[in-house]
């Protein structure tokens, strides 16, 4: 555990991101004419520098920073790189968008950068205080981003709904945290974990955790805290929607992994506090509600909003499976989700840029008018469904494998519900494809895509396909990110060996004692 001055070195990635926020704003202020390209370039440089700093200061073990308020470990580094990549892609996505005009670009990028800094802290929080503060940083920036188009009524409505739901969820979570603090007498996750393991008040622990789940569930848009999601995703500017549907959601899962893995003892699983049942119920409800509601949608952003709710459900299944298998599935899923979901939103942006709206009906015959965009959309949607040969298949495969590996009737039931849900999701994803390929367009002229959009689409579509073919590097990277968290489980053979060595030494001691 390092003190404040000595933590700064390991805190370099966050410092770079925070510095970039100031630099982007300040350069915009000093410049005679604000310019979108300059702000974007500065943002990209900052993000790449932060990524490089993360990789360069990476260590295989974990240690606490700032007297244990946050941790620097491979798991946090994994998420940091994920968030930096997300933000970098969002910069590319939003370059031609209406939101990034010359006047407002600097503010827009500064807001996304601040969100990224908050998400990076969320992924490394090891204390209730930092968990709450980082979550609020992300939330408040998200509200502003959702309402970024100030003149638009929908955007303002989205922001207002987001604020109100978010405020309630934060308040409820804070109350849960105060209960945990009351039990532990400390805000650190380790102390909370210890207190929860030894307290006789199991009901209080359960209540506190359920209340905390309100805050986390709100961030990942799980049932019953998903209501804001469709309205906000539809009303917010599309690049913001893309960012919100990937970044803060992944950050919410990072915090959930830390909270359940780092602060809730495994001994409590099962007997007094049924985390798997609780999480399993939420996961099943989230998947089912998301997929069934998506069936009825006619607006693409709304459809993707419900689909993203459903995907939060799949990832929650992995959290429910727990252990190294479950956590590995979460990380793998989030990486594949990053590419396919950002990709799907980018197709909407690219097509909207060429003059076609967000209603599915308007997408009729897109396969003929903009063949490349339609092919890319097909790749992303099939990947979201989880069909091979696309990255989304592996994402889902690992989730279900983790459930089955854990075993038990609950896990098997959840896996069956998950697979049924995937089948349902195929229907509404296929509806978009049907409109694109099997319905006649109203106008037949070809739709030219902007060169930037075409290039970014390729940048996202290629990994979605390639990850299926070249999967093992990603898996190795994820495994190395988990190594420090699950040292015993990652090396089952050596653990067994240790046990047998111990047993034989005990026998040896016994025999020598009888002699």
């Amino acid at each position, binding site marked *: 555990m390092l003190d404040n*001055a000595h933590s700064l070195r390991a805190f370099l990635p966050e410092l770079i991101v925070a510095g970039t926020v*100031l630099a982007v*704003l*300040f350069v915009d*202020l000093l410049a005679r004419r604000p310019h979108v390209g300059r702000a974007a370039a500065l943002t990209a440089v900052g993000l790449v520098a932060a990524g490089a700093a993360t990789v360069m200061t990476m260590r295989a073990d974990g240690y606490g920073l700032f007297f244990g308020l946050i941790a620097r470990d491979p798991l946090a580094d994994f998420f940091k790189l994920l968030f930096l990549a997300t933000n970098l892609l969002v910069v590319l996505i939003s370059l031609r968008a209406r939101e990034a005009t010359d006047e407002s670009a600097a503010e827009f990028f500064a807001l996304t950068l601040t969100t990224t800094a908050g998400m990076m802290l969320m992924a490394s929080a090891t204390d209730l205080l930092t968990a709450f503060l980082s979550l609020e940083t992300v939330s408040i920036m998200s509200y502003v981003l959702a309402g970024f188009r100030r003149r638009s009524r929908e955007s303002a409505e989205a922001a207002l709904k987001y604020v109100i739901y978010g405020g309630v969820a934060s308040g409820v979570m804070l109350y849960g945290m105060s209960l945990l603090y009351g039990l532990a007498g400390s805000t650190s996750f380790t102390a909370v974990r210890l207190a929860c393991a030894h307290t006789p008040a199991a009901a209080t622990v359960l209540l506190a955790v359920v209340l905390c789940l309100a805050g986390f569930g709100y961030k990942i848009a799980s049932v019953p805290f998903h209501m804001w999601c469709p309205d906000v995703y539809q009303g917010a500017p599309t690049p913001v929607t893309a960012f919100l549907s990937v970044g803060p959601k992944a950050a919410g899962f990072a915090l959930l992994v830390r909270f359940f893995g780092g602060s809730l003892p495994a001994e409590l699983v099962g007997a007094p506090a049924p985390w798997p049942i609780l999480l399993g119920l939420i996961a099943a409800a989230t998947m089912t509600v998301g997929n069934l509601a998506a069936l009825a949608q006619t607006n693409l952003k709304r459809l993707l909003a419900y689909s993203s709710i459903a995907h939060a459900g799949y990832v929650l299944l992995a959290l429910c499976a727990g252990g190294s298998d479950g956590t590995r599935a979460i990380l793998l899923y989030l990486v594949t989700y990053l590419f396919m979901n950002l990709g799907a939103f980018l197709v909407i942006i690219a097509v909207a840029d060429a003059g076609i709206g967000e209603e599915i009906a308007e997408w009729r015959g897109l396969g003929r008018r903009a063949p490349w965009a339609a092919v890319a959309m097909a790749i992303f949607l099939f990947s979201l469904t989880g069909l091979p040969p696309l990255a989304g298949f592996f994402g889902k495969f690992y989730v279900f494998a983790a459930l089955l590996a854990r075993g038990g009737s609950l896990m098997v039931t959840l896996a069956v519900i998950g697979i049924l849900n995937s089948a349902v999701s195929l229907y509404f994803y296929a509806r978009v494809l049907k409109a694109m390929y099997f319905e006649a367009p109203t106008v037949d002229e070809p739709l030219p895509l902007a060169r930037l959009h075409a290039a970014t689409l390729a940048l996202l579509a290629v990994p979605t396909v390639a990850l299926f073919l070249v999967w093992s590097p990603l898996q190795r990277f994820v495994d190395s990110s988990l190594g420090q968290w699950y040292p015993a489980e990652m090396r089952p053979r050596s653990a067994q060996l240790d046990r047998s060595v111990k047993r034989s030494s005990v026998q040896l001691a016994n025999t020598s004692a009888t002699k």
Partner: protein
Amino acid sequence: MAVSYSPILVAILFAVGFGLVFLALAMFMGPKHETAEKLAPFECGSEPIGSPRVRFSVKFYQVAILFLVFDIETAFLYPWAVLYRKLSCTGAMYGLVCSGNVTFFGLTEMVVFLAILVVGLAYVWRKKAIGWG
């Protein structure tokens, strides 16, 4: 455990009860001679000329948010000022005397913090958010 908190409960009940009893006494036993003069608003201005539930200009909120910048600044400056000697000292403190080396750590920290605030202030200024225009 629960027993040790019982005096607090008693105190709370007493406080609430005391207030309620005297309110009730005043309500039932107090003399009431209501005249037009007595019911008129007094001591805080003039007769109301409309509903108080009107929409306020958003500028008020803008000023309130700007005020927060300086509010937070002060909230952080006070504890920093109190701890300044300790922050600047590498060794143990004997009263106000530092036994180790004196560094600029505390000063640097505050300069960084203020620099961030100044960027915020410059931003607000440049965006013409100061003023009532």
